[in-house]
């Protein structure tokens, strides 16, 4: 696979991205390295894994990280109840050593996402989502898997990968990740798309929306993200939600009223909603004041070029 064909596959899956994303994905894929994707929330980090699974025709195995995640939730767990039951049932029927050995066989092993990914006969896409939310201990635990593609289970030894998964780790930079983890991965930093790409995403995901509205929404979202006053920047998914809401209301032109009525799909806190009024269509409309001749208004501010 080359960059052009990968890009074509991503386009096919309606994931519109630039050369940087496609090249980095190809590099990670070719080298068999995990890919660490960082960037603000809502830029499409998780989506890349889903799209890659579909582009490569592989199963997606997802591990959602959170504080307190440990190997019993991520890698494996012994089926303790089954083991206890087995002891009770077989206590008098089998030799003690034999019984003990059998208790740590694969019959009693509960696979969790990491083990499932490396024991799969067919290669999968393994998404380790929001690794920054996990503890440092878990990050250290991942090192063996990421560099050797193997895991060690104390009771049964080393398990090597039957197939090499394409590993994607995502992080919102809620905490700095360790150097050791970074060194084992290829790296990609995703940023919010520019207005042109966001318009293209809207048109790809919501083909019924008219182009004028798509441009207006993309421009307004861009302004909201640029504004220092908006604390939680709108994600691409929220852009699409907004467009869908506008479409459902039959809106074909983003007037201040239409924007105000549907702003709850984009901004989710009262402070941001209040500030959005000023940023987009209030007295402090940023476009009004910063307009260069020939620059198009966002539409939401209610001022349109003649």
């Amino acid at each position, binding site marked *: 696979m080359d960059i052009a064909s990968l890009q074509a596959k991503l386009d096919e899956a309606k994931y519109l991205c630039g050369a*940087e994303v496609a090249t*980095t994905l190809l590099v990670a894929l070719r080298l068999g390295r995990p890919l660490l994707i*960082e960037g603000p929330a809502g830029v499409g980090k998780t989506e890349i894994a889903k799209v890659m699974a579909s582009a490569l025709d592989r199963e997606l195995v997802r591990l959602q990280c959170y504080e307190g995640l440990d190997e019993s939730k991520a890698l494996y767990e012994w089926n303790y109840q089954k083991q206890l039951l087995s002891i009770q049932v077989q206590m008098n029927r089998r030799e003690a050593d034999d019984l003990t050995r059998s208790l740590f066989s694969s019959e009693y092993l509960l696979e969790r996402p990491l083990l499932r990914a490396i024991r799969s006969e067919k290669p999968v896409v393994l998404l380790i989502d929001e690794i920054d939310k996990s*503890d440092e201990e878990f990050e250290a635990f991942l090192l063996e898997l990421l560099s050797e593609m193997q895991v060690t289970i104390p009771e049964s030894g080393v398990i090597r990968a039957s197939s090499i998964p394409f590993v994607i780790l995502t992080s919102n930079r809620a905490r700095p990740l360790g150097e050791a983890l970074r060194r084992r991965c290829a*790296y990609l930093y995703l940023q919010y798309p520019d207005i042109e790409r966001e318009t293209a995403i809207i048109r790809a995901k919501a083909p019924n929306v008219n182009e004028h509205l798509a441009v207006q929404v993309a421009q307004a979202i861009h302004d909201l993200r640029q504004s220092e006053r908006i604390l939680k920047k709108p994600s691409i998914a929220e852009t699409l939600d907004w467009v869908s809401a506008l479409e459902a209301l039959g809106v074909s032109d983003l007037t201040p009223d239409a924007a105000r009525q549907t702003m709850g799909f984009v901004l989710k806190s009262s402070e941001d909603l209040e500030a959005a009024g000023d940023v987009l269509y209030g007295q402090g409309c940023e476009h009004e004041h910063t307009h260069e001749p020939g620059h198009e208004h966002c539409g939401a501010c209610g001022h349109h070029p003649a």
Partner: protein
Amino acid sequence: MSVYLEKLAEFSALLRREGLAVGIRETADACEILSVLDLSDRETVRLALQAVYAKSREEQAAFQRCFDGFFVSAEQRDAIRRKQEAEAREMAQRRQEAEQEMQVNGRPMDLREDLQEVYVRMGEDKRDQLRRMLEKMQGNLQRSPKLYSNFIRSVFMRFLLEQQMAMEDDAAIGSEAVDPDLALLYRDISQFKEADIPRAAALIAAISRQLDAELSRRRQSRGHSGKLDFRRTIRKGLETGGSFYRLSYRRKRQKKRRLVLLCDVSGSMLQFSEFVLRFIKSMSDISESSQTFLFSEEVREVDPFALQNMDAFRDYVRSSGLFGRGTDLGAALEDLTSRRPAPLGPSTTLLILSDTKTIDLPRAAQALLEARRQAGRVLWLNPIPQRKWPYMASIRTMSSLCQMAPCSTLDELARSCRKMMK
């Protein structure tokens, strides 16, 4: 292929010099990936190598600088070489002139090599200032050669040291990263413009959230360091038929941290104090039990939560009469250590934010020793860039008495806060 390998090895070495942790594995990866790419497409090569070599946003900025400097076309390379040769010729000529000029009574002045280099590199107007001073001194020099040759040397040294510091500042500004937020993170806080303040405030909020998350994680970390919790262990045992399969341990009780912040708000320190207070305020872990004092010539205790934004902070400092006055750290520390009830104690960290420029340095040093005796720990945040510390006697004195950390940039400030919490 061997030519490419050699080039890649050189490039890896260059990246290593720039601070990127590049190992053999990265070079091997780069080599492997280049063998399947179209090498004539510079942009693809750049992106591919970036994915292999740069492992963070910060490293990407450094990588781009190195790539642009290293992978150049033959014409560009020739142009750069010609330029470098011309510069080298000019520098050689300037060095020769400098040797002639830096003489007293026909003998070369006893100056450090790095200062001689500063003389060579500084602008013609600055050199003129020194030449004029030398001319003026000629008469005196003939009357009392020994006295005036020492005087001239000390004037030269002071002037050249100032120039050296200014040149280092310029270099730091010139090396700003490509990302505006990153640039802000590594820029000297004293160089912030009014327009940068909202972005800096947002950045501080983000870093504080990060620090808070790290701290809560540290607090919640589980370990078997405590004593066995019999009650829980027996209860858990009931789930497994009375066998104590999983042992429960008591968690270590967290020591409550107390922080006493002593902020210098005289003149140029105001901006730094604002930023540090913002950090402290947003770190919920320590701010609950902290006390904040502002000082210039005298000390005032303030409630940092009442000074929610920068304007309120500035207004308070201006109206309190602290602003625009000199700095007397000795008096401030004496006031702090003699207050009752005592703000300092064994479980207290005293955090001093000051550039160490104070009247009566010996008194300040004495008072700092007393504060160190009373407080569990003293940490000094110094907004003067660390590279300038060796030139300042007051910093040398104070840093020998307590732990001093730089906070001239937001990045350094965050690092210092992390250190403080350990």
